[in-house]
């Protein structure tokens, strides 16, 4: 990455836990994502992770929130585009045992060498060694909050 002052930072790949939190109307996580967008931080929304978040919530409000993410100026949906990407996703699933939506997050992050933004860093650290290159993870947490007192983390 260039060290120019105007260089675009590496995109953050939002995982299922973050997308599910937004779909569940978690105010803190949603506000954080809007703030990241406002400062021009590129955000990647893997399509299969959006499927998982929508499946979890199953409501029109949740789907509106997910659709709203797509409208953000710095956000971009990463689709499953072609046979090469399908084969790559299958390979990640086979190597890691991850669900297809989590594997899509890993595949996107691995291909683009981007950090995964998550509420569940431990899960990613567990699977990172299964891939050729280590996954980089950024965890959303409130360091001022007592351990085990998180109201943000969804079940996934």
């Amino acid at each position: 990455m260039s060290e120019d002052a105007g260089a675009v930072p590496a995109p953050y790949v939002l995982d299922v836990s973050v997308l599910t939190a937004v779909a569940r109307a978690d105010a803190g996580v949603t506000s954080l994502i809007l703030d990241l967008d406002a400062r021009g931080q590129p955000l990647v929304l893997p399509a299969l992770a959006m499927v998982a978040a929508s499946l979890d919530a199953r409501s029109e409000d949740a789907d509106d929130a997910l659709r709203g993410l797509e409208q953000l100026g710095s956000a971009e949906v990463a689709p499953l585009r072609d046979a090469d990407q399908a084969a790559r996703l299958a390979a990640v699933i086979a190597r890691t045992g991850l669900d297809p939506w989590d594997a899509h997050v890993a595949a996107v992050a691995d291909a683009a060498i981007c950090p995964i933004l998550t509420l569940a860093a431990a899960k990613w650290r567990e699977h990172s060694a299964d891939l050729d290159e280590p996954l980089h993870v950024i965890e959303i947490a409130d360091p001022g909050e007592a351990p085990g007192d998180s109201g943000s983390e969804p079940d996934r």
Partner: protein
Amino acid sequence: MSDRKARLTITVDPRLSAYAEQLVAEGRASSVSAVFNDALSEKARRDRRALDRLREIAAQADPATVSRMMAHIDAQAAALPQR
């Protein structure tokens, strides 16, 4: 921005084109252009509603908590190897 309508050349699926023609033939739309204009207006409305929904949720957050979470993210990002 001018209110004068812009002339566009677009390509649409045959079934959608046929449906637009059907709406006009049945008197449910004044023209094929009006059908597509209305459809795009509806998409714009849905997109705005989606973004409004996000902003409504975010407005309920505690700014101090969000600020701490952002600082935590920035610290982790700074520690990552450069691409």
